[in-house]
């Protein structure tokens, strides 16, 4: 269970990296396309016939950000109620899964609202780093040494193996 918790947390963290890479790829492609005389407008977008390098970055960003990361964050939150270390609940697992889930929910909301309020993009970018840090922190807490330390701190008399 602890391992699955860690894997899910790493999926969220890795997803953030994919998100940053895909959107940079897509925007780089747009810049190149426009530089070469290409025009992007609503007609082109809705035709779904855009053909420029980096175009794939948008669906990747949409699928990973709209489905993969939220699903992983939700599963992480559910799993956090069951993840144990030495038959006791792993301290902080629920808290950090909750933090990750809340940040991801905020991130998705910001992402879907950017077209209406472009300034939200500033928070979207910064919040991505918060998701990354929180997910890595959640993942690292499950390492045996970290879990043992957490357990020791929680119960000074506990015997660890």
């Amino acid at each position, binding site marked *: 269970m602890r391992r699955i918790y860690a894997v899910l947390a790493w999926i969220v963290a890795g997803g953030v990296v994919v998100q940053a890479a895909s959107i940079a790829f897509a925007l780089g492609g747009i810049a190149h396309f426009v530089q070469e005389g290409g*025009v*992007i*407008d*609503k*007609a*082109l*977008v*809705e*035709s*779904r*016939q*855009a*053909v420029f390098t980096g175009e794939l970055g948008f669906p990747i960003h949409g699928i990973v950000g709209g489905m993969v990361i939220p699903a992983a964050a939700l599963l992480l939150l559910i799993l956090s109620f069951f993840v144990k270390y030495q038959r006791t609940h792993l301290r902080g697992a629920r808290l950090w899964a909750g933090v990750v889930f809340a940040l991801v929910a905020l991130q998705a909301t910001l992402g*879907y609202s950017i*077209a*209406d309020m472009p300034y939200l993009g500033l928070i979207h970018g910064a919040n991505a780093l918060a998701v990354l840090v929180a997910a890595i922190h959640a993942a690292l807490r499950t390492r045996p040494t970290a879990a043992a330390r957490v357990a020791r701190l929680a119960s000074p008399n506990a015997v660890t193996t």
Partner: protein
Amino acid sequence: MPSRPDLVRRVSAACALTAAAGLAALAWSSTLLGEYSVMTMGPAGALGRGHAGHDAEAGSGAAAGSTSVTELVADPLRKPDVRIRLVAGSQTIDVPGGHPFQGYTVNGTSPGPTIRARQGDLVEAVFVNESVGAGATLHWHGMDVPNAADGVAGITQDAVPVGGQHTYRFVAEDPGTYWYHSHQLSHEQVERGLLGAVVVEPAVPSPNGGSTEALALLHVYGGQHTLNGRALDEHVPAEPGSTVRIRVINTDQGTASVWSAAPFRVAAIDGREVKAPAVIQDRSVLVPAGGRVDITMQAPAHGAARLNVGGARSIFIGSMTGDEPGARQPSATLDFLAYGSPAPLGFEAASPDRTFDYTIGRRPGVIDGRPGNFWTINGRLYPDAPMFNVRQGDVVLMHLRNESGEVHPMHLHGHHVLVLSRDGIPAKGSPWWIDSLDIHPGESYDVAFVADNPGIWTDHCHTLEHAVDGLVAHVMYEGITTPFTINGRAGNHPE
């Protein structure tokens, strides 16, 4: 060997899983549409509200039918004034200035031939499907034709199979700029070029002028922005000081912008002349998907004026010098709600006989076995969309509201609709008659029309992929039926 309790647990889990899978399969199969008639669409219960407080009959073909859509035709004895044969084919489209594109053509080209008629002419178009495998039709976008000629597969006719033909007959009653396109698998066939322009000349010249004319039909072929089928700009020679009318037709799936550094006017919107249109400067004009605007511009004393049509192409009016400057696209847009001068409406919009809500939303669901994030109308997923039942002669008021996050160019077939207000602000310019209206996220419009063209009329989003994903409803006249079906042996798939 598992213990007995373990065995019981495993068998129980297997039974529970099987039951869950069975229920899921049952739920999924219940969404399959199979062959269906538009007559059976719409939830039971009242939808329209009569002005006297009584509810209109609605849904499930509530009105007892007596007239088939096939009977709603133009005078069959009248000889046509304009007769044209239109042959649809599947072939490579040559895009001058760009690269070839595998699509659909009409008479060997895309856009197909422009149909020109005089106001009052009877147009007869013989449509032949030479090689469009899935079948095809022709819909006369913006023209208030008799219902039998509306060209919607599965509602007003069967899709014309390869080798088949269908004759459309209608009187071109209203002068203006229109277009035709397939309404069979329209999201694919329109995008791939099965379309063309229609121009109806007025019986009496318009006061808005424009002795010289040019078409600006916009379409994206394989990612290439084209103007009249060419990935090139165009030049309209004109004497200095003369007025030129540019008929802009947006056949794409999204809004197009029109702007110029030179002053211009919008002479007509969706085939209806604007009364006393003011000169426009530093404003972009937005043309919804499927919509049209007629722009009038004066050729300058020297050189040529440049009109940007769509994001990528321009039309040059006057004498080219080769040094025509571009113009930065104005961020401010022209508001048709207050453009031009008021004029009599011709009907009493303030006291409607029917009032309907058309609220657009979005939610996950399953349509015809296909899971997705679909558009909803009044909170309901297709095919549970409302049926707007009307009687001939009704004045119909519709509250359009977009609660989704995307723009929707809403298009009602067979009627022109008057915009009364937007977000509660009443229209105060020239009567704003439309057949294609962009509704932006969060916006609401009150629109009205007179139910004066009996039939069953589609009312859908013209970002055609949205119609595939459920953004389609219908206006149905009392006493009208259709023998045609969707998803059946005839292979009708209107969207």
